[in-house]
């Protein structure tokens, strides 16, 4: 009896195999799996290629590559501290400006705007993300910096110049200029993701808050924002990831200077902009590999940030059952 069942099972399995082979389903499925694997392979290959092509600076400088501020191709000294510092300073400053504005936009788009205005307005904000980086750079360099950033910098210097953060002399292209351009560029990312977070919050939360007599702002500030906090953090981190890797626009307005002072009014340098500026003119192995290693650091940094951000956004989505969403 048992063997008969087994026999039937193997027979039907054979038929099944035959059926699939005949219709080409196996080949097709193999193809889609191959396509899926390609995506993963590319992710791994990027990390591997960057690591594999930058052994020299690791052997020669080790970890001091990240802590030395000496970047001198002539004496063959390479330390990436000015770039790491510049990248972190400009990106974090951009976040300080962009987060409150983006949250305002997200709240307006998700909670306040009349229904007919939401879609078109959301699209206009998303168009900000579509403007090419090089156009931001061009506009930033010749319009934004002289007409807005420099007057702001002069004002900051004349009123708060005693702080090291606002020390003169005032330059047009500066870290402040880079952060203010980055602010505009990361607005759409943060506001789009946090708008989706607000939309994912169940309306029962809103109704409960309003029923208890809260004003609309109290509902938003005391109920919705704490509820979606993890997702909003995710949005902020995604914005940070964009800011860290932004290249051309920053290169054009930051002034490209190995200055390590704290002043945001001074020109600086970022990891991405040193690569853009010096890669095609790097003349010897160690020089090129040092630049590739900076690329590796940038890759690792954005990878880690993406991991954290996706996890945080996923946590909000998981907590909210699909049928309860607004």
């Amino acid at each position, binding site marked *: 009896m048992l063997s008969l069942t087994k026999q039937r099972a193997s027979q039907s399995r054979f038929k099944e195999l035959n059926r699939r082979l005949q219709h080409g389903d196996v080949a097709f499925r193999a193809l889609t799996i191959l396509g899926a694997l390609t*995506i993963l392979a590319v992710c791994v290959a990027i990390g591997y290629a960057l690591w594999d092509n930058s052994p020299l600076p690791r052997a020669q400088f080790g970890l001091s590559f990240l802590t030395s501020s000496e970047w001198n191709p002539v004496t063959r000294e390479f330390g990436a501290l000015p770039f790491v510092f510049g990248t972190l300073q400009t990106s974090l400053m951009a976040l300080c400006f962009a987060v409150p504005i983006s949250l305002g936009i997200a709240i307006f788009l998700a909670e306040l705007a009349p229904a007919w205005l939401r879609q078109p307005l959301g699209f206009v904000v998303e168009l900000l993300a579509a403007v090419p*980086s090089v156009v931001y750079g061009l506009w930033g360099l010749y319009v934004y910096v002289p007409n807005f950033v420099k007057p702001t910098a002069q004002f900051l210097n004349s009123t708060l110049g005693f702080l090291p953060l606002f020390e003169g002399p005032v330059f047009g292209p500066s870290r402040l200029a880079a952060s203010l351009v980055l602010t505009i560029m990361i607005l759409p990312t943060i506001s789009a993701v946090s708008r989706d977070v607000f939309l994912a919050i169940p309306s029962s939360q809103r109704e409960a808050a309003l029923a208890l007599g809260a004003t609309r702002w109290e509902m938003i500030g005391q109920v919705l924002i704490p509820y979606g906090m993890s997702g909003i953090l995710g949005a902020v981190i995604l914005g940070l990831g964009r800011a860290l890797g932004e290249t051309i626009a920053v290169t054009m307005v930051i002034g490209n200077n190995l200055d390590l002072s704290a002043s945001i009014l001074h020109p600086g340098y970022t990891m991405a902009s040193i690569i853009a500026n010096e890669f095609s003119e790097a003349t010897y192995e160690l020089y090129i590999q040092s630049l590739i290693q900076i690329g590796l650091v940038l890759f690792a940094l*954005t990878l880690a940030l993406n991991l954290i951000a996706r996890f945080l956004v996923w946590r909000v989505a998981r907590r909210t059952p699909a049928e309860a969403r607004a």
Partner: protein
Amino acid sequence: MITLNQAHFRRRKIVNAVMLALCGVATLLAIIPLVWILVYVTQEGGRFLSVQFFTDLPTPVGVAGGGVLNAIVGSGIVIGIACLIAIPIGIIAAMYAAEHPNTPLGIAVRFGTDVLSGVPSIVMGIFAYTVIVLPQKHFSAWSGGFALAIIMTPIILRTTEEMLKLVPRNLREGSLALGASEWKTTLQVTLPAAINGVVTGIMLGVARVAGEAAPMIFTAFGNPFLSAELDQPIATLPHTIYVYAISPYKDWHDKAWTTAFVLIALVLGLNIAARVFTAWRLKKMGWR
């Protein structure tokens, strides 16, 4: 007691009104730079726009006239290469991700897509440099197209996947019940039903990579002459803007603005077209 309550209530109402108004102001703040950029680029770029700009090669500094034909052709070629690589991979991987969303590989693909779309474009440029330029020992259109393909793939993958998921299940089931094999169902029923997602993804992907200057610096590199050789350095629109913009010459700055006008018209046009197309298709199919 009553007056205290009233004062408190008034304060809450004022805070409410102020904060809600600030949210509206924030939205306005985001629109200002967009309008500022569009108006300025149109003004500055429109002044020098002529037929010659599209049909002539660049002239040396100080010589009047000249255009960016080399960059237009170059951008076309590099984007074409990127499409040839990214579209098939993006669609095929999207089919897998849409049909097996909960298998380990399906989750991994979606995660990989997130990672790829988060990697800075300059890192993609270095990757293409190490994979293609270093072994060949010279810059080429190929390497530029390769870098752009990696930037483009996650965009196509994600929009295609979203649309494949929107296709009603009974369409698939109907086809399978009629005896069609799985691959025929996917290719002839599901994919055509989701074709708007594919087209939207391609348009958005092209719009994104058309404006990428950073990876072009050390892959396609730029070329002042008209070239259609895939193995040679080639000019692209965004890279041309970059080179012109950071040059010290006034007439190159003017050309940068005009090129920026052409590029931004292309990119925003594609974005708006993608949006309109999707809305139209979804309405037609009655899915939303």
